[in-house]
């Protein structure tokens, strides 16, 4: 094995009464991974992170860090650090005291602590607030204190539970660069929970998509984006047209004018995924899926064009294309007839899902 995994989860499970918040999960995360966990609200992301950090006892399974079983160790005995979704700042302390707390427990020399804290506060742009009481900060400021407080200890495994959710876009982008730089500098494994797929794509080199307490798919960001395992993952990462169709004799017909999509396998209902940016529009009904423009939405650098087409069975389906403004065919107002085309390899055939 090239790089041994630093963090390993074996059959990690958590039940609350009869409800299973986290189904048995097996994961191996390597030393320098920036690992992202994506998933809808309530799918068990926080619970999973809290089990790794030692705040929630698993109902079953093991957590191994560097090959050592830490399942029964309390948080203060684990080489993990966590940025909590709801901050958990020490409200009776100042910003500086919050950030310094961990180093003070480690009995570092005073001067060293002071310098480290300054550096950390500078990094999260909080130096002017150093001596404010932590309880008097805004949500975004609190989040950055929480981030600095965890980062300063340079944990082997850093657990980030939506650490940037309360920041504005500008600051979030700046923090992305900082996080990448810090990861580069201190190494170790970062595990990030996020709802923001751009964030995940920017930061992570591995992604797990969770759903209902299970890992639906795990892989690199491009793998997950290009080859989602099922319609749920496809919809969750990026925009996706999921067009219902039937496979008959190894071929799928999407609708009027669409080229047949070869797809080996038994006859079955399928979903064909087409990313909006993979689609092109041609004015008039020529070769390509015949459709009518329903709506054109200006989105700054590009436009989204919602079209209505007919499935092979005759029912209507909506297809959305994302185009550069310059490639929008002339005269494509509402109701205009268009043909939707795509490159040969673009469609991905998925088992029909909800």
């Amino acid at each position, binding site marked *: 094995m090239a790089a041994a995994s630093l963090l390993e989860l074996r059959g990690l499970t958590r039940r609350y009464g009869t409800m299973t918040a986290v189904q048995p999960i097996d994961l191996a995360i390597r030393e320098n991974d920036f690992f992202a966990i994506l998933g809808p609200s309530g799918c068990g992301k926080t619970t999973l992170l809290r089990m790794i950090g030692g705040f929630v006892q698993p109902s079953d399974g093991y957590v191994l860090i560097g090959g050592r079983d830490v399942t029964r160790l309390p948080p203060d005995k684990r080489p993990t650090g*966590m940025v909590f979704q709801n901050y958990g700042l020490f409200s009776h302390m100042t910003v500086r005291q919050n950030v310094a707390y961990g180093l003070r427990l480690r009995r570092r020399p005073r001067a060293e602590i002071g310098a480290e804290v300054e550096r950390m506060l500078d990094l999260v742009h909080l130096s002017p607030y150093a001596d404010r009481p932590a309880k008097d900060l805004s949500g975004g400021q609190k989040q950055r204190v929480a981030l600095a407080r965890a980062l300063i200890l340079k944990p082997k495994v850093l657990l980030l539970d939506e650490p940037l959710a309360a920041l504005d876009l500008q600051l979030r982008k700046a923090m992305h660069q900082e996080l990448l730089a810090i990861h580069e500098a201190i190494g170790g494994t970062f595990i990030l929970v996020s709802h923001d797929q751009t964030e995940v794509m920017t930061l992570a080199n591995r992604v797990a998509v969770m759903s209902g307490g299970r890992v639906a798919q795990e892989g690199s960001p491009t793998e997950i984006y290009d080859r989602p395992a099922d319609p749920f993952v496809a919809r969750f990462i990026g925009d996706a047209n999921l067009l219902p169709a039937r496979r008959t004799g190894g071929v799928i017909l999407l609708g009027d004018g669409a080229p047949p999509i070869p797809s080996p396998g038994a006859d079955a209902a399928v979903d064909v995924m087409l990313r909006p940016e993979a689609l092109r529009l041609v004015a008039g009904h020529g070769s390509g899926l015949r459709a009518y423009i329903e709506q054109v939405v200006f989105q700054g650098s590009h436009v989204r064009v919602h079209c209505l087409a007919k499935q092979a069975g005759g029912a209507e389906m909506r297809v959305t294309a994302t185009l550069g403004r310059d490639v929008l065919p002339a005269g494509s107002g509402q109701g205009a007839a268009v043909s939707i085309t795509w490159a040969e390899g673009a469609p991905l055939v998925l088992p029909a899902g909800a």
Partner: protein
Amino acid sequence: MRMPDAERAQLRREGLKTALLMAPAVIVFIGLFVAPLAWFFVQSFWRNATFRVVPDFQFGNYATAFRDYGGVLLRTLGTGLEVGGITTVLAFFFAYAVRFALGRAGPLILVIALTTLFGGYVVKVYAWRSLLGLDGILNGALMAAGLTDAPVEALLFNAGAVTVTLTHYLLPLAILPLYGALADMDETVIAAARDSGASAPRTMFDIVLPQIRPALIASFAMSFLLAAGDYVTPALVGSPGNAMYGNFIQSQFGLRMNTPLGAAMSFSLLGCCLLILATVWLVMRRVLRAR
């Protein structure tokens, strides 16, 4: 800059509204609390002649309060500190367990503890009398278990019985502010401290206790004041030898009909109590501060 007239009128109306709303409470407070207290404070400098009170301004009553009753005063304050300390510590552990350790059973146990507030104070004192007495339940159990042959006399009518009884009576009162403060506390804060590397006891001293310091002081102040000022419990379960200051104050106002001395003793006790509370407040602020 001048305020626009409309704004000023608005402010005046608001002020009037506030004054009207507060008036009943203020009248009751002054009439039933401040005025009588002030009257007794004035009297504490007067002199007692046979069966009548003579206006004067002298400190003789205070001298007597500290000289003749100094030992009792010290013992009373000691009992107050002991009961206040024990009660606050027990109440904290109870509230902490209800909040963090007992899960769903917690609130139920809290309610059970608080329902004991419905039982009157004197009822509880008598309950302890029958628990600790010669033919009491505890002695019965000790004898049944074969630990003693004869009932143990040392259980009742001593300082220990006073402490136990007062602690039991004050416990639910002390739990209330502590539970309130702990309920407001975010569990994530504790998790974050553990995550930073603090052991469970460290977390307690660095994070939990400083954050609930006002409630700790409130619980201690309440149990300390009520214990130090009590005179019923020592009369019923204590021994005559360890009567508290309140018992002597009571007898000045009653049997001895020496209102000035009674008043002076009352204010002496009050002053000492406030001094102790101020000290406790300062110490707590020093010990339980952010570091």
